[in-house]
């Protein structure tokens, strides 16, 4: 498996084709393609401070999902909502937040047998007015991302449609990098991350096993 550095170099090498999709990396041979049944999302988390994240939440809401706004800190969301919900049973969530928020939720979710199954890092280059999406997740989902986000400046809305299609059944992670023009370059931060955290294994503390790892623990392997 390529290291994160190697992967970024790969992406850099492909940047000779500007503002274009760089293609979905194929799943390893022998893996069955994942089911198309989507993961039921308990909540979609967004950071109220950032336009891309608000657009993401707006589209999620339009799609009928329940949204939760944070201001960077996930404490209230965790303490008043998710912890209570997850004590009953694991429930998938998705979001477009800072990395700090994902880091906390990923660590907390692990105790309930959940892992980060889709992750996309969104790197905003203000000077160039473009955004780079470095994504890892199930192959079918990344094909959807390629379709929904290719060349989209309003990428937050497309991303909301992507996470709602995250498959419920486990699948190996593959990689995709897209580059597009960006809007709100003056208000969005240089780095945001979108993600899906979903159940895996028995609904209990530290449950695990299987072919796919948490993409937060694996961040160095991008």
């Amino acid at each position, binding site marked *: 498996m390529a290291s994160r550095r190697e992967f970024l170099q790969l992406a850099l090498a492909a940047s000779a084709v500007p503002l274009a999709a760089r293609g979905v990396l194929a799943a390893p041979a022998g893996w069955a393609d994942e089911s198309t049944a989507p993961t039921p999302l308990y909540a979609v988390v967004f950071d109220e401070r950032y336009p891309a994240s608000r657009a993401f939440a707006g589209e999620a809401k339009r799609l009928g999902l329940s949204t939760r706004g944070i201001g960077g*800190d*996930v404490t209230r969301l965790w303490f008043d909502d998710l912890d209570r919900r997850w004590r009953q049973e694991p429930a998938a969530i998705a979001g477009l937040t800072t*990395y*700090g928020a994902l*880091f906390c939720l990923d660590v907390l979710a692990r105790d309930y047998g959940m892992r980060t199954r889709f992750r996309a890092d969104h790197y905003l280059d203000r000077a160039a007015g473009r955004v780079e999406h470095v994504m890892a997740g199930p192959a079918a989902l990344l094909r959807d991302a390629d379709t929904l986000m290719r060349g989209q400046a309003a990428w937050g809305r497309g991303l909301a449609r992507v996470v709602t299609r995250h498959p419920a059944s486990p699948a190996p992670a593959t990689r995709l990098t897209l580059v597009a023009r960006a809007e709100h370059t003056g208000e969005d931060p240089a780095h945001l991350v979108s993600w899906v955290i979903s159940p895996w294994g028995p609904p209990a*503390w*530290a449950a695990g096993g299987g072919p796919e790892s948490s993409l937060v623990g694996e961040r160095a392997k991008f």
Partner: protein
Amino acid sequence: MPPLPPGVTAQQFSNALREFGSAVGPEWVLSTDEDIRTYRDAFSPFWEEAEEPIPSAAVGPNTVEQVQQVVRIANKYRIPLWAVSTGRNLGYGGAAPLNSGTIVLDLKRMNRVLEVSEENAYALVEPGVSFFDLYRDIQERGLKLMLDLPQPGWGSVMGHALDRGVGQGPYEDRFGAHCGMEVVLPSGEVMRTGMGAVPGAKSWQHNPYGFGPFVDGMFAQSNFGVVTKMGFHLLPEPEALRLVTVTAPRRDDVVPFVNTVGYLKNAGICPASFGIRSPRNDTGYWSASLKFYGPLKVIDAQWEHAQEKFSAIAGVRFQEDALYRFPLSPDAIDGIPNKNVLGIPDLAAFGQGFVRDGRPHGYGHYFFAPIIPMTGEAMLEAQDVFEQAFKQLELPGRGPVGFTGWQRRSLISLISLPVEHDTGKAQKNREAFRGLMRIAGEHGWGVYRAPVVFMPDAMEVYSYNNHALRRFHETVKDALDPNGILAPGKCGIWPRRLREAREARA
């Protein structure tokens, strides 16, 4: 495939896992690659290098009896165990052990709040109880009690105290505020300390000492036993909290400035932890952030007295930052930036850039934490020494600008080094970290705590009289844990059979 414990064959390891499964339930023996990944230190200074400690498996008991069985099985196979409560002390090692192949004894399932007394303001908890758990218990029962919290607040009440972490409230020294322990010894025997040694004890959490030697300290930052219950004194909810900032204009003000802070602390007028910063500019060379907890009339008088004392320094300025009245409404809590000082656990630090994954430093940090005397002279010396050390070790910046009160009469200068995933940069930072510890030691300062992978290096500094202290620790270790199964090497304390590992590291 996870690494095997040293000196243990694959067959022996497999047999041991089966026996652990019989003790705790096979679903609580975790040994796949995916399982093990969750026990890596997310902030490891050795991330993905050959030296990164990777456990062989994790075992999750739910009761003290199961802990006893696990310890006995580990003795049978001479498999090392590394106990963690929640494993979230990021910056100091997380859940990862010191040595690859060690089995993590994960106590997270033991998460029961066993007793909370409002009348005597104490709690008795198991290792897996987080600050969030205890806070929720207190809130749901409507008890007028306050927690003394670290930041962030997702760690274990017990684990944080056993690492001698400091809270931001009036008790500050959280290990010092504990009262009574239950410990599974390396033999598998259960012992209770203090008044808890009396069968049917009625004052276990009321008096810490009991009768005879006070042994509780032997189980903090050590590898002499697995603590399975621990009592803590809590703070009765105060009427109010006042936050203030005092500023002194000149570098030379430091001696009377720190002396005044120390007097206020040691006289019990302002006992809570505090911070002193030096922006090193003309807008106010020194500033101290102080907290006053108590009845409003009392803290008004304390603040007035503090201002009188500080007024001996020409040009000193006072600023009242906030006044909070308890109980706080949920709406009021929402708008407060640092909730920890109010006894409300939070994760806000992560939302403020505590963890960054942008470029170039997105992989966390680890802490260098030397203890210095609470005097102005010591602060100036530390600033000068570490400024030179930063130059010598080619670290960015000028060294520490901030100091924090740490227990009663000392300060800490908390310096974080970034975790790097580039091997060359990571190696440079590790060498710098060891260099900082060495330089601190040459000036008579030791660290109060160290990231797990640097624990043996930290103990090297505590070398008075040819390491008499470490030799004492290891004499105790050999007596209590002859098979060396509990956390070998933790805090630089190695069992006899593995001491050559220390020599090899040296």
